[in-house]
């Protein structure tokens, strides 16, 4: 039982990590508290449902469609939601409220289109393997393999390639990056694509695993935000590791309390961290940017 919960925890933690790293990528370089990340995630899940169930597309093509639409939504948010605000140099709270607005509009637009009833993408066989007492589904393996591919390549990309270095330069010192002639708008677009694609992948996994619900975006983006802060703002792997931790704790807590308390537990962890170690596990400096 315990080991099985650990396996489940690692899998859901890995999905959270996809969300959290995408959120951190955007948050670190733009300082936008990107709640609409949850909208991208939800759109991806609903797109997959629509492509598989209604259009009858093969799974691979459906996944591709979902990721493409996620990226498009991400780009639309950046171009029409955030960029006009950035040009006017508004406060970070303004970005946040705008992001919240975008999230609400997309979420409820999807409810209008698909109804509020949870959707299952059934018909996809979930083959399970038995390892002694453990049950691991094909999907769980896919999640792990995917994360093992995505995260190292992302790390390589950000530390070794030219554009990756530009992204980090922009995160560390936006003004200096601008002075040095980096085309910040392009880099923002690039970060948006990466972040949205990560959220899209996470949405697909959750849709295949537990189904599509209208409120799934909130849970995902809040855990992502919590993970970014617990992991330490400014350090990408920290967000991923913290997300893994939150997934594990959520799943193991089922041993003691009912699963309905998961949201409360997540934020319990956050508040605990804010009291004991506000800079996060791996954080070096605590940034006190105004809201």
């Amino acid at each position, binding site marked *: 039982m315990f080991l099985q919960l650990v396996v489940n925890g690692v899998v859901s933690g890995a999905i959270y990590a996809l969300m959290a790293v995408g959120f951190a990528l955007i948050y670190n370089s733009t300082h936008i508290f990107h709640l609409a990340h949850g909208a991208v995630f939800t759109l991806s899940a609903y797109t997959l449902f629509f492509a598989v169930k209604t259009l009858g597309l093969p799974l691979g093509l459906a996944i591709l469609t979902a990721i493409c639409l996620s990226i498009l939504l991400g780009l639309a948010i950046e171009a029409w939601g955030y960029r006009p605000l950035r040009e006017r140099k508004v406060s*970070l709270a303004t970005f946040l409220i705008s992001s919240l607005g975008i999230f609400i509009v997309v979420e409820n637009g999807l409810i209008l289109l698909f109804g509020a009833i949870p959707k299952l993408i059934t018909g996809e066989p979930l083959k399970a393997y038995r390892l002694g007492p453990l049950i691991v589904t094909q999907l769980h393996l896919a999640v792990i393999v995917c994360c093992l591919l995505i995260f190292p390549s992302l790390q390589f990309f950000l530390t070794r390639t030219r554009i990756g270095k530009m992204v980090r330069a922009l995160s560390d010192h936006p003004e200096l990056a601008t002075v040095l002639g980096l085309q910040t708008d392009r880099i923002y677009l690039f970060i948006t694509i990466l972040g949205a694609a990560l959220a899209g992948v996470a949405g697909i996994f959750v849709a295949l695993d537990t189904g599509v619900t209208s409120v799934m975006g909130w849970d995902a983006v809040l855990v992502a935000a919590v993970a970014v802060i617990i992991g330490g703002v400014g350090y990408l792997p920290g967000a991923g590791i913290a997300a893994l931790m939150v997934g594990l704790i959520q799943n193991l807590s089922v041993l003691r309390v009912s699963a309905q308390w998961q949201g409360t537990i997540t934020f319990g962890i956050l508040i605990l961290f804010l009291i004991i170690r506000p800079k996060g596990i791996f954080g070096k400096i605590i940034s006190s940017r105004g809201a």
Partner: protein
Amino acid sequence: MDYLFHLAIVISIYIILALSLNILVGFTGLFSLAQAAFFGIGAYASALLGIKLGFPFWAATAVPILFTMLIGIFLALITLRLGGDYFILAVLGFQIMISGVLYNWVDLTRGPFGLYGISNPRLFGIDISSNFRYLLLYGLIGLASYGIISRLLASPFGRVLKAIREDEMASQVLGKNVVHFKIIVFAISSGFAALAGSLHAHYFTTLHPISFSLTESILIVTIVILGGSGSLKGSVLGTIFLVLFPEALRFLKIPSDVAAPIQQMVYGFLLIFFMLFRPQGLVGEYKL
């Protein structure tokens, strides 16, 4: 006529709620997505004191206000020493936690089954039972709240708040303890939210956690942004507009499973629109 009274009563309750958030957002620049949580703590505390311990209306309102203020101070102490984003996320988390408690602590709150049997208010031997009497009482309390808050903000205390909002660093340099002021404002804000909660509990006489969810917090934020952060008149205007808006959808005979998401989408569009084109709201002075 009774229906119009009902609307006016609901508006009175929400005006207090919107003002409570506006003190925070509009006068210190702190953005909170947890106003419904304080509203809920006030409502449930008031209802439970009345039902379980037989507290009269005035005591079942005063005690929850103090209790909620203490919780507000506790939350402020944890979050305010951190930067803005941490504050927003922690407060948002507080909202989720309180929702979780209201839904899941069934022994105390009756969770999703709802809490029933809250008595009518009785003041000075008068039973508040008709909608007209409710309106008189709640309207008076609403007016009094408006008066107290506007007096407070016009006082030297209020001027310090405005100074903090405009330039935190400069106020600090002038020797004002910024965190100290913010904690006081947070306490006042949660106190008024609890007052609205108690009024809500004693008017509807039943409580359900859904009235105190994140969605509700978003509605309160939308009211404040629409009216204009920092403008008390704006909050009144915003409340009237956004309380009457769902009623208008009802009159148009739109089925509720379509009306609910439409309503939410309108809130979302309002937030985006006002942030893009009119960050000071309808009548506000302060650009968030």
